[in-house]
């Protein structure tokens, strides 16, 4: 399901392999279910330190499309799969 945006060389965080590092470029807000605010989650991710330009290292993913464990700003976060799919990163060697 991971679509690569060739023009910008951005991939979703979930496309990184274990131990790979990327730099956050953007967070795509949710498809929006009508009511509610996608703002909340984007803001929450930012508040947890995933701002554009931040280096993120994927440590591992839980099996069966479970959450992703990442290292950000010296601390360890667990991100739900759906959430991680919306975080776009650039990898250094591409």
């Amino acid at each position, binding site marked *: 399901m991971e679509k690569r945006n060739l023009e910008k060389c951005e991939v979703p965080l979930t496309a990184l392999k274990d131990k790979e590092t990327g730099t956050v470029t953007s967070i795509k807000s949710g498809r929006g279910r009508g*009511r509610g*605010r996608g703002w909340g989650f984007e*803001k*929450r*991710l930012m508040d947890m*330190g995933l701002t554009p330009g931040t280096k993120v290292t994927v440590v591992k993913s*839980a099996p069966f499309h479970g959450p992703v464990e990442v290292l950000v700003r010296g601390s*360890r*976060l*667990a991100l739900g799969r759906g959430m991680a799919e919306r975080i776009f990163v650039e990898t250094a060697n591409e």
Partner: protein
Amino acid sequence: MTQKKLLIALAGNANVGKSVIFNYLTGLHQHIGNWPGKTVERAEGTLHFKGYTIDIIDLPGIYSLSTYSLEEIVSRKYITVERPDVVINVVDASVLERNLFFTLQLMELETPMVIALNQVDMAKNKGIQIDLKKLEKLLGAPVVPTVAIKGIGITKLLEKAIETIEKGAVEKHAQARYGEEVEERISALMAMLSNVQVLYPPRYVAIKLLEGDEEIEREVKKIDPKIVPAAKKLADEIRSLHGHACSTVITSERYELAGCIARNAQKLVFPIKPTWGERLHNITTHRVMGYAILASSLLLIFYSIFTFGGYTSELLNNLLYELEPIVKGAVGAGVAGELVWGGIFEGIIAGITIVLPYIIPFYLILYFLENSGYLSRIAFLMDNVMHKMGLHGKAFIPLMLGYGCNVPACLGCKIMETQRERLLAAFVTTLVPCAARTVIILGLVGKFLGFQWALTLYAFNLIVIFALGRLAFKIVPGEPTALIMEMPDYRLPHAKTILKQTWFRVVEFVKIAFPLIIVGSLALKLAEIAGLLDTLTAVLSPVTVLWLGLPAVAGITLIFGILRKELALIMLATLLRTTNFALVLSPVQMIVFTLVAMFYIPCTATIAALVKEFGWKKALFVTVFEIVFAIILGGIALRLLTLVI
């Protein structure tokens, strides 16, 4: 001597040792409750120090002061409305950057503060050395290094806090300076805000308006409706300059600043080998081993709690019933004796035989797991499964608790971020067969039909939980949230903190559950004495006999079961005059009875917990829904099972 009163608030990220400091400071002089009208916990305590009476409030552990969660709103309101004399910001020295991000926001609230640089020992183990003087200078606030679990630095922290208050004048904190484009617009907004009086400092309001903070927008709109659109326009300018939303730009810059302070104040000396915590983390979150460890620890926990609980519960029960002749002798054996013993005392006994054997060990283990950091690993491993019912990994924790007792489980739903998720999680939790329902399942179906039938019922229960959870998730309006959770380093939990947390939880449980259990058992006793039970049986018989195919007396037993689920089985034995249920009930009747008992209503104590957390209306809705659901389910099961068996 009149003592001067002070108010100190503790604030900081989750998992930084805030509650250890709180417990250290306040000892047993604590009061734990909810913030008025909110499902957010409020912990207060008092201590006497150097002639002062100090009220300490432990604000919830949060990462930011925006409006993402109820905790964040409550915290910033508290700091601005109640104006504590000083805020102690507890900071984890081993994750300085993330913690300082929060510190910078606290500073924007322009409150006097002292920084407790906690877990300096763990930071050292991770190869992080912090230059205190430099950090103090960069932040413009006093910094006290502490190791809370060993009590190191706490007295100094308190002295520093009082010193800060006594000095009076608020020290000028290093205000977070943003980039030029942002600063210009903050100044422009502050000029517009000069006549607007809100709770928060003008600079804070200006920043939050640029960030698009809904609560602040509402406040400002009330006073001057023109300002919000103006702020939106300024924010759009920043968006076009930077290519990111204005709130993103501000958050980024704030993090940059936090990172810059952290890098300046700390020196990294790389540790030689990975710490034991790291290794433990790798094993406990491993894709195979992690689940094996989780499954075996849960089995071990439940097995030991049930074994211990079952044994102690019976022992206590027998012991307490020794009092019967004494009490009845004192009050007289007539109606008064029946009421006092059967109503009040039996209610209390029912409560005691739940609390001591089950609730206390449960909380002890729960807090051990929480304080050590394992709970967040459980949430990580189970996130996937919980998504199937529309919740995320953290919801597994109340669900797991529910197998012990639904009451702490419902109260534990606070770990979810939004009110909607708390309600969903609580609803799902009330469907989990607790220890009392396990007694019925094992005592009736397990004993007379075989273990495989009991297991089938458990499996069926899980299916129902998933199905109803999903359904509720679809119906209740709101946006689903996903897991965003910090997994703190493993650490040895602090025994005293665990004991205190358990103690205050148990007190809370007693306060919630006991009154209702006693009132309920009194009411039932009255009904019994007034001879209403036969009438009740007759009234209920269309449902119990015709629809569910049960003996008529089952109706009463289910009513008694509301007080305490396993009473349903005990009453059934009494009324049918045998404990060998095989003689009086058919296998199908046993299954139907157990099914109904499993789902039909949360017990009184759970209802009380639901009312406390979510209000009467929602508690009533859940209760009525579950009664109707259980009856319909039981009837259908009867008709299907008679075809099979």
